[in-house]
């Protein structure tokens, strides 16, 4: 039963197996999904009561959408590493897979989770928040996709860093905020352009920033994760 495939293929199988393990575990325990859904529903309800039927300018609504997404992500995405630490299974996983396979397996899981969360948030937001109209759907869709990847990438590595800390609940959003600030400012601006009906080319600069952000965060995560994970 020795591994005989190529190293790349084995790494890919390890990564997808870790993703599937987390996925099945989540379906059984509902650790992250419950927290995320409850947070989004509660926050949008509060916003609904606060704004009422008066509405708000597109730039304010765009910013508020990403505030909901940011804090939603903060309430659920750290679970991927924190739950391993709390259950004492971190060492078990260290024994089973190389650090990079763990990082990308967890990143894949967080990505699926954040895309599902964002789809749910946008759906509720569009249905209930008066005045939130997207005029350029292509800009908005790509912003949500790239924003989700960026959020998943930074949330995953930060979760890995804070998992062993005693005050992880507080540390997570505090540490995430400065790292996520460039991403948030860019996605808010791109969402505003989508709401104002800008041409796709006008948002090209934002997309370049988002792609660069993702490349930098994923590369740095890959380089530092060995040290974070092992010691």
């Amino acid at each position: 039963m020795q591994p005989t495939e190529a190293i790349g293929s084995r790494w890919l199988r390890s990564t997808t197996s870790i993703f599937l393990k987390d996925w099945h575990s989540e379906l059984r325990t509902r650790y992250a999904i419950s927290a995320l859904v409850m947070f989004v529903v509660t926050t949008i309800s509060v916003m609904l009561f606060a704004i009422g039927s008066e509405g708000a300018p597109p730039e304010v609504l765009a910013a508020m959408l990403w505030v909901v997404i940011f804090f939603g992500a903060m309430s659920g995405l750290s679970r991927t590493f924190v739950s391993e630490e709390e259950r004492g299974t971190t060492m078990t996983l260290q024994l089973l897979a190389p650090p990079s396979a763990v990082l990308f397996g967890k990143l894949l899981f967080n990505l699926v989770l954040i895309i599902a969360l964002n789809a749910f948030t946008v759906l509720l937001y569009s249905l209930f928040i008066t005045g939130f109209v997207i005029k350029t759907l292509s800009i908005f869709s790509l912003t949500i996709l790239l924003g989700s990847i960026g959020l998943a990438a930074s949330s995953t590595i930060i979760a890995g860093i804070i998992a062993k800390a005693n005050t992880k609940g507080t540390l997570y959003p505090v540490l995430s905020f400065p790292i996520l600030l460039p991403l948030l400012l860019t996605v808010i601006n791109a969402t505003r352009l989508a709401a104002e009906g800008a041409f796709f080319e006008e948002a090209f600069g934002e997309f370049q920033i988002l792609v660069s952000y993702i490349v930098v965060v994923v590369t740095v995560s890959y380089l530092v994760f060995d040290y974070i994970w092992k010691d």
Partner: protein
Amino acid sequence: MDIHLVARNLKKAFNRRVIFQDVSFTAGVQQILLIAGRNGSGKSTLVKILADVLSPTEGTVDLEPRARAMFGARSNMVGFVAPYMMLYDEFTARENLQMALTIRAMRPDKSYINELLSRVGMANRMDDQVRTFSSGMKQRVKYAFALVHHPPILLLDEPMSNLDEEGIGMVRDIMDEHRQMGILVVATNDLTDIHHHDIRVDLNAAH
């Protein structure tokens, strides 16, 4: 298969506190390495370093090169049982073993998994979630978990903890059998856990 586990000048310190230093040994197939020492002497720390889940502050742990090429990462060569190593509670015993293989990119062998779980006395509970098990039952499943990928090196930290008499007998059989084909490393305070050893590392003398 000719495998050697070679530790050279190992030192581990947490901040400024040195746990042990100048620890060196070589263990080969059909040998039992005993790691002894009082509480806090670093037995578990040394075992974790051998399993490659913790880095030494100084020194190296190496495997004979041919063996490494055959098995890939050191974690693929090691089976590990310890009271602080946890299984996934929300999965069944069988699912834990399947997962141990799929995450290592190996194909799960259903009949071997059944055979292993029967061997550790868990035949009737293999499809129950681990959260429903007693600590002794979990310890039994950990042995199956450690052996499922046929590791040539078996690392046991406090091997008899939580086990009843029958469980202790089962572990002795596993140890005897593993010694015939691989390297057995046992870290314990209780010298009755192990009848015989070939190499002894005394961490009381390694400060």
